């Protein structure tokens, strides 16, 4: 089926509409993605995700995409909207004037179906950086906390805000060209633990590699794309300094 493209912004029964151009890929029948267009109501408080749900609920039940919390914190609904990686729950249709709005899966990831991408590689990268608190020696009893002042908390807090939405990977030309690159979110997550005053681990071996921080050429688009202001570009550059200093001065600590 293919809906006929119609001009957006026209009025149907008094209601404004906007055209969504949605990338469809059905592995059983398509060798590559094709676009289908749908007209959906254009309402001031509708996000792109509301438009997609309208399509799924009322126009074409076969459209597949991921979403859950629709409040910008679960990280499921990242897609490419008019060429840019965005969280569709927080991107309003009104942003696109008369439309059309082009919705594609996140770039840089293999497409499973329609707007759904494969993220196993991303998860493997997260696991790879040992994203847990590494302690040596005796553990404290469960009545006492590892003291951490607000300043010490502030030192890594920003890097702990990642929702794993993968927009940064999609925005990163290095990752899109070379999927072996460890990538922004994973390195930022490593830094989240590296800079945590409670952590005693060492992730130099994991990060000081060609696929680690040295794969980054500092395009900086990960930071622009990040909906949570994690600033992965900064995390990576900071670790470049750390890794370089530790290479030159082997006795230096992080």
């Amino acid at each position, binding site marked *: 089926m293919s809906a006929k493209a119609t001009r957006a912004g026209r009025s149907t029964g008094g209601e404004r509409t906007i055209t969504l151009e949605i990338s469809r890929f059905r592995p059983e029948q398509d060798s590559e993605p094709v676009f289908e267009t749908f007209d959906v109501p254009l309402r001031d408080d509708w996000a792109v995700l509301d438009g997609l749900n309208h399509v*799924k609920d009322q126009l074409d*039940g076969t459209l*597949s995409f991921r979403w859950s919390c629709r409040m910008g914190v*679960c*990280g499921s609904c990242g897609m490419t909207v008019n060429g840019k990686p965005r969280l569709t729950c927080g991107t309003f249709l009104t942003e696109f004037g008369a439309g059309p709005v082009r919705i594609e899966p996140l770039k840089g990831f293999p497409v499973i*179906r329609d707007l759904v991408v494969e993220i196993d590689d991303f998860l493997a990268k997260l696991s790879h950086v040992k*994203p847990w608190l590494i302690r040596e020696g005796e553990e404290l009893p469960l*009545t006492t906390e590892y003291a951490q002042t607000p300043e010490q908390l502030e030192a890594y807090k920003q890097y702990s805000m990642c929702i794993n939405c993968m927009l940064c990977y999609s925005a990163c030309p290095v990752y899109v060209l070379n999927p072996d690159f460890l990538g922004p979110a994973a390195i930022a997550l490593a830094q989240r633990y590296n800079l945590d005053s409670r952590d005693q681990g060492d992730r130099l071996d994991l990060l000081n590699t060609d696929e680690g921080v040295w794969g980054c050429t500092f395009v900086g688009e990960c930071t622009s794309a990040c909906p949570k202001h994690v600033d992965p570009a900064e995390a990576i550059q900071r670790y470049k300094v750390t890794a370089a200093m530790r290479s030159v001065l082997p006795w230096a600590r992080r």
Partner: protein
Amino acid sequence: MIDVLIVGGGGAGLRAAIAVAETDPSMTVAVVSKVYPMRSHTVSAEGGAAGVIADGDTLDEHAYDTISGGDWLCDQDAVEAFVVEAPRELMRLEHWGCPWSRERDGRVAVRPFGGMKRMRTWYAADKTGFHLLHTLFQTTLKYQEIVRYDEWYVTSLVVDDGRVHGVVAVEIRTGRVEAIAARTVILATGGCGRVFPFTTNAAIKTGDGMSLAYRAGAPLKDMEFVQYHPTGLPFTGILITEAARAEGGWLINKDGYRYLQDYDLGQPTATPKLRSMELGPRDRLSQAFVAEQNKGRTVETPYGPVVYLDLRHLGEAKIEARIPFVRELCRSYQNLDPATDLIPVRPVVHYMMGGVHTDLHGATPVAGLFAAGETACVSINGANRLGSNSLPEILVFGARAGAAAAAFAREHREGEAAAVRSQGADEQRRLRRALESGGTGPRIADLREEMQHTLEGAAGIYRTHDTLAKAVETLESLRERAADARVDDHSTTFNTELISLVELHAMLDVAETIVASALNRTESRGAHQRLDFPARDDERFLAHSLVHRAPSGNPSVGLLPVALTRWPPGERIYGRD
């Protein structure tokens, strides 16, 4: 053969997985979740997690606040265990790296919260659930023995001879249906807010685990107790955390009047007073909203009546420091800035006090089947859960269920039951039928919407016999029509429409039990308010509702006395000392 199979990868499920891995590394533990674990709805919890740690606070006070907040429907033995273990669990999270907000000296900070007499709510700014879930998820990555089935949807439990033997699940990506044999199963699938039209709950919260248990013969408990949170953003239902009121926010009506003073919740004070006014319990605040609406003192909007949450007097600096996510959400989703604008809010379905009936260790009456978290009902929440008790609950009872399931699996070493294969094959046939033929009837979304509006009309903040009885009929007809629901998508690859259909059936199960329990409880208590029975009736209903699925498929409601230890039922007093 999996020793402990956990359905659901949210806070309770992951905590249970770690508990198993820590007690016995030789055990195999699997987490089967329909979404990647970090997408689970725990991620959306904002305000905090209660646990006694501050000087001058006591476990008994936490227990009393919880029990009185729950209108004496809590099992007091469960509450006592809970308040003891909550601080330890929160501390364990600290040891795993959770970025709790801190005092200047480096100790964990606590904040006030609704219905709590003391400051005992730990928080990580106002993204507590997010940090808690990510800390748990990242900690599970440490354990090689935890196997994950990400984006697998469990469609049924394999039960034979009164005992669970595993699950049948569909791998969403490939459409492959597989029976997974397991010695024990822990349900940790969260709540079912999506049976209502206006909810803070994520799309995934469709009551799957409740339905699985119910169909497997385990009863559901206290399903009539549905918590409305008083402050949801209109249209989206996005939650504005109670922490906004704990930090000093006011609720005002269309005249700018702090109306809660008219509802026996104390007198307005400039700074927040514990267990008073805006820091009253959620049921009472939501009920006060309806009264204001009836008096014509709410503001009409395209998305229904609202009142306002006023944070302006807190100032930008405090809002930014303590509740930045509130500001972020208001700006991104409501196009306003709480530092300068009033936030329109209305009560919104938030939490299920009820759930799968379990004992203190998460065990259900079906041998080998456990449940923990919002999907379970232990019960510590009674007729109304206090804000910031649910996060420690998923930790305490997630860990308990994990340990209990591991113990059960150790004692039951027999091999795979024959039922696993046969039920797996049955389920495969059933799903293939749904997939291939589909239906020609109504759209899934239309059925879902009708169910949601039925529930809101009948089982909202106030209920009556007549609307509930009518809802029973509507749900029956919905059940029939759902059997022929239209399925457009015949693909086996990431078929979300098929999942929506199975979810719809689960939601209809849960909806029926909510309405049946509400109809049966002819009293008003906590979040269950009957206009035709406005008083609490301890004579008859100091008891849990227990719904079984009768052989006819219809719900059958019974009662189970509440466990009382040290706190005899009393009056709920707020705003008066």
